[in-house]
């Protein structure tokens, strides 16, 4: 079984996106199947076993969120990556709460989708319930920042805060994200929250003193 190729199902109503994803992934040696809508995706999940489902949230007919709900319940061995349009992060966050392993925003480069799929498949069979802890969300957030996947990073940071609102690291990262996105005011606020929670938390102190003045170039401290 270990030598079997990982099987990936791509569910997207746009031909372009199915083509782009297939093209990027088949060269990594995966076995790829495509579904043109939600109903088709569930039919294929029923007919054969898949390691990964790449799922567009917005499809005509049965939408991605319903597919995700069904898939998470009936096929827990299939991990789900949500494919979203730019600016629809709220839905993606909702999807991660429903059990999606990760999400990727359109447009994406071939390298980006390949790396993400490889990471998810490598992550092994960590069940999503186990992954819902502070440290995991924090690690996923840092990884996303380093990959410049800022929307994903923000979603993870918020989950980390929800998991444990009493620790400084996540607030510091939230500040970093706001600073990257140009919201200096919000950033300062979160650096201060991090410092209030733990006055000796060095990364937040550095970020605060660096960004407290009119923009000074310097390195953002991820902690």
């Amino acid at each position, binding site marked *: 079984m270990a030598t079997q190729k990982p099987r990936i199902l791509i569910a997207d109503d746009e*031909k*372009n996106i199915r083509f*782009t994803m297939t*093209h*990027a992934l088949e060269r990594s040696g995966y076995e790829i199947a495509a579904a043109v809508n939600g109903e088709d995706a569930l039919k294929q999940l029923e007919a054969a076993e898949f390691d990964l489902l790449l799922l567009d949230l917005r499809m005509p007919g049965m939408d991605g969120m319903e597919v995700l709900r069904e898939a998470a319940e009936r096929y827990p061995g299939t991990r789900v990556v949500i494919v979203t349009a730019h600016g629809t992060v709220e839905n993606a966050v909702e999807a991660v709460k429903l059990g999606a392993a990760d999400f990727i925003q359109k*447009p*994406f*480069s*071939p*390298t980006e989708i390949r790396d993400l799929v490889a990471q998810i498949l490598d992550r092994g069979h960590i069940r999503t319930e186990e992954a819902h802890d502070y440290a995991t969300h924090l690690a996923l957030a840092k990884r996303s920042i380093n990959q410049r996947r800022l929307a994903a990073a923000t979603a993870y940071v918020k989950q980390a805060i929800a998991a444990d609102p009493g620790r400084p690291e996540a607030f510091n990262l939230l500040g970093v994200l706001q600073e990257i996105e140009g919201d200096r005011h919000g950033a300062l606020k979160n650096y201060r929250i991090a410092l209030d929670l733990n006055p000796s938390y060095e990364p937040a102190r550095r970020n605060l003193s660096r960004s407290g003045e009119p923009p000074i170039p310097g390195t953002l401290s991820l902690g």
Partner: protein
Amino acid sequence: MDRSDLYIIVAGCGRLGARLASELSRTGSSVVVIDRDPSRFAALTAEFSGFHLTGDAIEQEVLRSAKIEQADCFLATTNQDNINLMLAQVAKVIYGVPLVMARIYDPLRSPVYERLGIDTISPTELSAQEFLRMITARAGLEPASALRNGR
């Protein structure tokens, strides 16, 4: 680099942008085309299998949502020289895109930008060269009066 691994951003989906985006996509590159006017995307051919993004490429937020920091190549093909040059500089200097090219109508501006590492293509210059080449080729063959009389 493997051609089908290239991630290419085309800013401006006019006749040139649409043509380039369609051809690059057809030959296997992953292409994102940006235009302020979504009706422009109709000019892409059926073979285009990339992404399109509606927005003004001079806004950094738009460039970031196109994931410019991952791009291997950036083509500035709006219909304005100044915009193309600005976009090309942003792509080169701020985001460090390895290959940046801009369409420039006014050939006199080209040398300045070539010094900055931005390749420019001037349709004016290319057409002029082609006109001159044809004139030279013809001139040696027949007198104009003979051509006009249809011989």
